[in-house]
């Protein structure tokens, strides 16, 4: 008797909620299309294409000379690798500031291996990646067990790792002639006009992106960044995942060091200093929330290409040095402000809808 009365009230109950939580009735294809078009990644890509278009109109050589086309893709390769690793770390609500020093260390290591040992190229690359992974593991263990914010830990290891390169290399530098020609050629080699190093970097981005989207482990990284306390309540192994994220970031920074050596040929003890901030900037501009939990490695990759490209385009447009830096800064700030604004507005709307 009572239960039938409840049943009668049901439609009214549902109606009251229809506005807030009604399932969208788009077809799957249409929904996928809308999601892509409305995503942050799409808007950054649009900005990137716009900048390339403007530069090309101003100076057609920017896109259409063979060298420029190659540089457009080749220059971001190092940053792409760093941004992919950084993105994974930031998604877990951490940050890895040591990647610049890891890059410097492994780039110098790469040169030394060619000079001091007869290791084949493939082995050298593997050693570089492995060395980066070990340095990343140190970061991860310190963050996982130290109960100190990653910002502080990796700021410390930034100086420590750089100190190691400085005392090891001193005023020595690696020169292109120290390394095998086949290795140096990697830096300029292209397949169908696309540089090999860019293909490598994009492969990494695709693999990381695929893992983040389709693996349980990848989704757990998002969950940890979204609410670390809830992640513990869900029974997720937060520490193991965070350590793994740092290992990945270190390994990719190691790979970036090898790529750096191949691309530029000469490596000094200061190689890659300051690039960690570019990596963080690329990730943030790419729509990854600095407090973790959202964003994609695709966005971070586009962000990396955008930052590098802007730095090359602004001189073409005749914009003075100082303003170039300021413009990049403005880009970062507006990306963060946009994030905050959108989430605040949404929250406010929903609270008001509930309250009335």
């Amino acid at each position, binding site marked *: 008797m009572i*239960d039938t009365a*409840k049943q009668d*009230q*049901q439609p*009214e*109950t*549902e109606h*009251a*909620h*229809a506005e*807030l*939580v*009604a*399932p*969208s009735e788009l077809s799957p294809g249409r*929904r996928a299309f809308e999601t892509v078009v409305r995503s942050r990644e799409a808007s950054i890509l649009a900005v990137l294409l716009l900048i390339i278009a403007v530069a090309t109109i101003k100076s057609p050589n920017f896109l259409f000379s063979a060298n420029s086309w190659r540089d457009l893709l080749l220059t971001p390769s190092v940053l792409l690798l760093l941004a992919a690793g950084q993105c994974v770390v930031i998604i877990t609500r951490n940050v890895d500031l040591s990647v610049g020093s890891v890059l410097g260390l492994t780039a110098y290591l790469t040169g030394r291996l060619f000079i001091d040992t007869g290791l084949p190229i493939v082995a050298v690359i593997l050693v570089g990646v492995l060395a980066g992974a070990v340095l990343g593991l140190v970061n991860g263990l310190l963050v996982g067990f130290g109960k100190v914010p990653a910002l502080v830990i990796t700021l410390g290891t930034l100086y420590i790792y750089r100190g190691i390169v400085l005392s090891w290399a001193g005023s020595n530098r690696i020169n292109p002639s120290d390394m095998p020609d086949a290795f140096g050629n990697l830096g300029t080699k292209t397949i169908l006009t696309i540089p090999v190093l860019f293909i490598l970097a994009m492969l990494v981005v695709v693999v990381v992106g695929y893992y983040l*989207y*389709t*693996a*349980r482990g990848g*989704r*757990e990284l*998002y*969950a940890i*960044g*979204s*609410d670390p*306390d*809830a*992640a513990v*309540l*869900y*029974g*997720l192994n937060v520490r193991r995942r965070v350590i793994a994220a740092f290992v990945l970031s270190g390994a990719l920074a190691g790979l970036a060091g090898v790529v750096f050596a191949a691309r530029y040929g000469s490596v000094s003890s200061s190689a890659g200093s300051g690039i960690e901030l570019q990596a963080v900037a690329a990730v943030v501009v790419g729509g990854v*929330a600095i407090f973790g*939990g*959202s964003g994609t490695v695709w966005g971070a990759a586009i962000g990396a290409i955008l930052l590098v490209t802007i730095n090359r385009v602004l001189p073409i447009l005749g914009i003075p040095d100082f303003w170039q830096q300021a413009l990049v800064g403005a880009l970062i700030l507006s990306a963060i402000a946009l994030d905050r604004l959108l*989430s605040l507005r*949404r*929250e406010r*709307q*929903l*609270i*008001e809808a*509930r*309250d009335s």
Partner: protein
Amino acid sequence: MTENPTRPASLELRGVVKSFGAVQALRSGSLRVEPGSIHALVGENGAGKSTLVKVVAGVYRRDGGEFLLDGSSVDFSSTAESKAAGVAVIYQEPTLFPDLSVTENIFMGRQILGSGRRINRSAMYAEAASLFAGLGVHIDPRRQALGLSIADQQIIEIAKAISLDARVLIMDEPTAALSGVEVERLFTVARRLRDEGRALVFISHRFDEVFELCDTVTVMRDGSYVDTLRVADTDVDKLVALMVGREVGDLFPKTPATVGGPVLEVRNLGSTGVFHDVSFDVRAGEIVSLAGLVGAGRSEIARAVFGVDGYDTGSVHLLGKAVPPRNPRAAIRAGMAFIPEDRRKQGLVIDASVSRNVAGVIRGRLSRFGVLTQRAENEASAPWASRLEVKTNALDMNATTMSGGNQQKVVIAKWLATEPRLLVIDEPTRGIDVGTKAEVHRLLSELAGQGMAILMISSELPEVLGMADRILVVSEGRLTADIDRDDATPENVMLAATRTREVRA
């Protein structure tokens, strides 16, 4: 729903004990919940309900007593274990991952995998949709959890519990933040789960809900089991009597004070979604208590009055002058002092010395040419600390090493140094031992005697009844009663605190 004595209860607790240091939060917790039943658990704030729930959920480990699930003894050391055993707890404020879709929230950590151990999203969406359909609710499985109402977040938690096939569902004050229709929806879902043979525990302060939804009710008081009754055989008066069940003695000596003119005048104060249409006065020499249940909006009102939080409508006047909103500095200058609930977090620079803490709020007055010397700080704070008998060997001692009672006195000393006309104090004796409690009460009473207006927020009914000249009862963000000291009884305060929105009556 007929009880079968040979069948084991879904959940049974007998004489469960749990202590935190010297504080015994649960003396003897007992509860027996049958399958296919909705069991209410009621009691005052601090009666031990939440502790009991956390023992069942595996958040705490019991110190003693028996804990049986379906007749077999269990001992959980983590929430993961209790989940695996079929216990699900839905908290008042669910913990979801705001950035992820509701489907991911339901399946996090045990996603449906397709070929190559890749997550099969479409299978998960379909499963979530069928869960929601089974619950009779409309939530887009693809939408983000961010921005969901509390009601919908609870539905997500319930969907999660069902997908885990939980046999015991505990809902800890699930309706506190819900509107009328949302409560009805939750009840429909709860009845559906009951009819499937699951056991539900429902914690609520709203008696009308207990009578509408539940078949059995267990009353707790002071960390102990009091009684279990069939809902059909009892009424509100009987439950209130069981919940309160103790005499308010002379534990709290309130010395009479001459009441002067109004010091604080609050008019039509409102903040969207938090509290509405709050108007009251506090006069000189008067202790006014904001009473009510946890989460009713008492602290929020106090924070808005002091200017820590903003408000949308209304005004605050101190001694006839308007106090600007969202400006604690102006409130201090106007003569207000605010001692927040969590003093470790909000009221005390915990790693600083006593004298620095006391002098902190009057730094501006103490500094000479912008330089603040330790000597000046010590000189200014010494009289206050000695007056409050803060037992620290030296004023240089760090606040972090002191007992809760002494910390509280340091916080009070800190604010008295500003010579306030109005003292707002939130939970003045929380976490303080009995002896020091009386000292804090004596101090408050003395301050009122000197003509200070005091607005006190307390969850402890005896403290409210013992200390306050006037009791303002807050329920769901609204003032529901204004009771004079002489007319106040535990029953009428409790009834006003559990009074629900008129709309739902």
